[in-house]
């Protein structure tokens, strides 16, 4: 009998201890400064009671990418006072025919707008748009709306290359700090980057990030490894470790959706610049800053247009001004001194229109300045360029369609393409 009581007591102590330790983890978020480009609430307007929007997500909230969309729609839902049954979020929808059937399903439940968040959803969203002309279909990161000629199919993206550039400044300053502290020499300022697929959206992001870093640390170079998947925690972690150990990278950033890279960085004590939102919890000592697209303004915009009976833009590109490009604060545990001030200055330059990320005087391609480039803006399956995008001394990104089309490899960046191990 005594033993039983003892066991029960010990168990109780253990459970209490566990609960207490769990409580402790989430409270210490005080190393973060205030958001540099905050997620502001959208403007309020009245929506009819029978309005419904369906949101199709590739993964669930464990993916930083999808979480970013879920947070976006939920904040709009809260501001506009929408009920649970007015916002239908479908998670774990593969980039295949199930996307079409899910869209059909959402339409049959009365959705006036169906939104999908992943690049590979596009073909199936277009099929759905053709099948349901009375419903609006909006697709993030897609490339085909402007050539498809459907009045109810739309693409959206944001000038996130500006956000990446700003985050890049934080990376460059951190490299400078390492050089000043004698931890590395100037020629060893190698950034590592974990990317999903070697195509325009990822290349545009990593190039703008690199240009931001090099704007303050001129000797910076970068090495990129691709995982061939949007969400593969093990592979992302493995790629980050390979960059750190084999390629001698001293700072890591990523464009893939799990916590693989931030976790690898925290374990190896290598600074990390994140994407899609703060990964402070996965790397309290190494996370520096994160840029993200805030989708709330776009959700509010499409809901407003449908409520007012107005057409939705075929291509919609959010900017810093629309509140679509956001930046977290900086983690004072990891960031270099002066980071906040440098980023604030660059934000002002972007707002004034004096700073262009892809300024052709700031980078070279195969040793030469870029004078002209035909980008693959019309996505017709041929993967050949047809639109001139270099004018007025800079590459005009996200102007001829919302999704990025900067797919050049600039000098100083090295890609490891043979990752299909």
């Amino acid at each position, binding site marked *: 009998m005594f033993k039983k009581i003892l066991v029960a007591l010990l168990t109780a102590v253990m459970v209490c201890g566990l609960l207490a330790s769990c409580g402790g983890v989430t409270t210490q978020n005080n190393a973060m400064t205030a958001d540099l480009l905050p997620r502001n609430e959208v403007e309020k307007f009245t929506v009819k009671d029978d309005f419904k929007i369906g949101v199709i997500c590739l993964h669930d909230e464990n993916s930083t990418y999808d979480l970013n969309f879920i947070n976006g729609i939920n904040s709009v839902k809260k501001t506009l006072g929408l009920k*649970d049954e007015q916002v239908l979020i479908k998670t774990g929808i593969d980039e*295949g*025919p199930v996307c079409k059937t899910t869209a059909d399903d959402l339409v049959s439940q009365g959705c006036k707008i169906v939104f999908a968040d992943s690049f590979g959803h596009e*073909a*199936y969203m277009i099929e759905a748009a053709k099948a349901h002309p009375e419903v609006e279909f909006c697709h993030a990161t897609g490339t085909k709306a402007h050539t498809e000629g459907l009045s109810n199919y739309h693409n959206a993206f944001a000038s996130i290359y500006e956000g990446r550039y700003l985050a890049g400044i934080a990376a460059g300053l951190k490299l400078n700090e390492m050089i000043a502290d004698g931890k590395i020499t100037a020629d060893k300022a190698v950034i590592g980057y974990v990317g999903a697929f070697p195509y325009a959206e990822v290349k545009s992001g990593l190039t703008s990030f690199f240009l931001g870093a090099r704007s303050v640390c001129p000797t910076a170079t970068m090495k990129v490894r691709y995982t061939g998947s949007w969400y593969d925690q093990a592979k992302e972690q493995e790629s980050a470790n390979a960059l750190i150990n084999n390629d001698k990278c001293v700072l890591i950033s990523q464009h893939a959706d799990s916590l693989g890279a931030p976790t690898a960085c925290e374990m190896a004590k290598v600074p990390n610049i994140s994407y899609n939102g703060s990964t402070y919890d996965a790397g309290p000592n190494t996370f520096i800053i994160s840029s993200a697209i805030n989708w709330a303004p776009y959700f509010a915009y499409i809901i407003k247009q449908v409520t007012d009976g107005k057409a939705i833009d075929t291509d919609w590109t959010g900017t810093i001004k629309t509140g679509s490009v956001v930046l977290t604060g900086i983690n004072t545990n990891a960031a270099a001194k002066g980071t906040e001030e440098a980023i604030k200055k660059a934000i002002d330059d972007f707002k004034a229109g004096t700073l262009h990320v892809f300024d052709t005087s700031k980078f070279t391609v195969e040793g030469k300045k870029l004078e002209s480039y035909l980008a693959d803006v019309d996505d017709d399956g041929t*993967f050949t360029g047809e639109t001139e995008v270099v004018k007025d001394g800079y590459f005009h990104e996200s102007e001829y369609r919302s999704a990025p089309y900067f797919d050049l490899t600039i000098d100083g960046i090295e890609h490891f393409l043979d990752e299909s191990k």
Partner: protein
Amino acid sequence: MADTTKKKADKEPLFVVSKRAEMKFGKSLLVRVIAIAAALLVCGVLTLILTKNNPLTIFRTIVNGAVGNETRILETAYQTSILLIISVAVTPAFKMKFWNIGAEGQVIAGGLSTAVMMYYVGGTFAESFGNPLPAWAHTLLILIMTLTALLSGALWGVIPALFKSKWKTNETLFTLMMNYVAIQITEAVRVTINKGGSGKVDSSILVHGWFPKLFGKEYLLDIIIVLIITAIIYVYLKYSKHGYEISVVGESENTARYVGINVQKVIIRTMALSGAICGLAGLLIVGGASHSLDKNMAGGRGFTAIMVSWLSKFNPVVMIFSSLFLVFLQRGAKEVASAPGIGLNESFSEILTGILLFFIIGCEFFINYKVTFRKHTKEVTA
């Protein structure tokens, strides 16, 4: 005296597991129903404790997610049919005790060659005969797709069978390795055709050779083909000479040899059949539904099918129900993960599916074996 009886009782194990004679159908059905009820009960209690949701709401959501409206019924029927055809495909080999865990790769091989034909042959046809393809070219393309899918699936199955029958290699490892080969070839082809940012060649690129819709319904042709194949295999296994040979080889290779069955020939022939049907599944997935090339096209069904096949005791008709049950659960669980007002994610629905499977597979143990507990012997205290 009291001491010795106590010792004797200690030596006797707590319980004894012994094989049962065949259980009556009615009784075994009852055991299964009880198992499912128990599983639902555990799921319900767990839901209540962990999520504070009403378990009835969860169950209603599961049913609603699987068969709530016409789109969902059709999707569930289609998913069931694909799982069913792969289960039917692996059955002849398993009945022969050939441990083929390469169905995944065989499906992918079939799907891959289908997609390649859709892209290259379909593209050439479109250039020569006009786009969209005239009806005869479309039919010819589908015939070519079918033929190549059957052949490549069969090839993927025959290679391990050849090695097994000639050199006694281990078929489990071999078929498993063939999966990875198929996946990597698919990736290589995918990268060649599509340089974009999704891990697949999608339906905007594979535009030729789509299966026709029957009565305006998607997937219906797939479903009908699967039912026909299921019926054929049922007859083949139960009534044909080949089917009999498979059973004999499965029971004992030596007996088979003794009665004059050419064991090597049976193994190779059966694996060719298994592989070809898997290849056909690949064709149905790519040509009949997804119109895309994706290394995850089989989606683990090559492995789930093994479970379906065993659970159904290699009976293709029973497999219809087993695969329907599994797909029903998966689709329902998916709905639980995203239904408004419940606020759960996919992990929880996977937990629920796991509990149900645990009970269902667990109950098979009680159907096949008898557990006898040690008789309670009263201790002599004096």
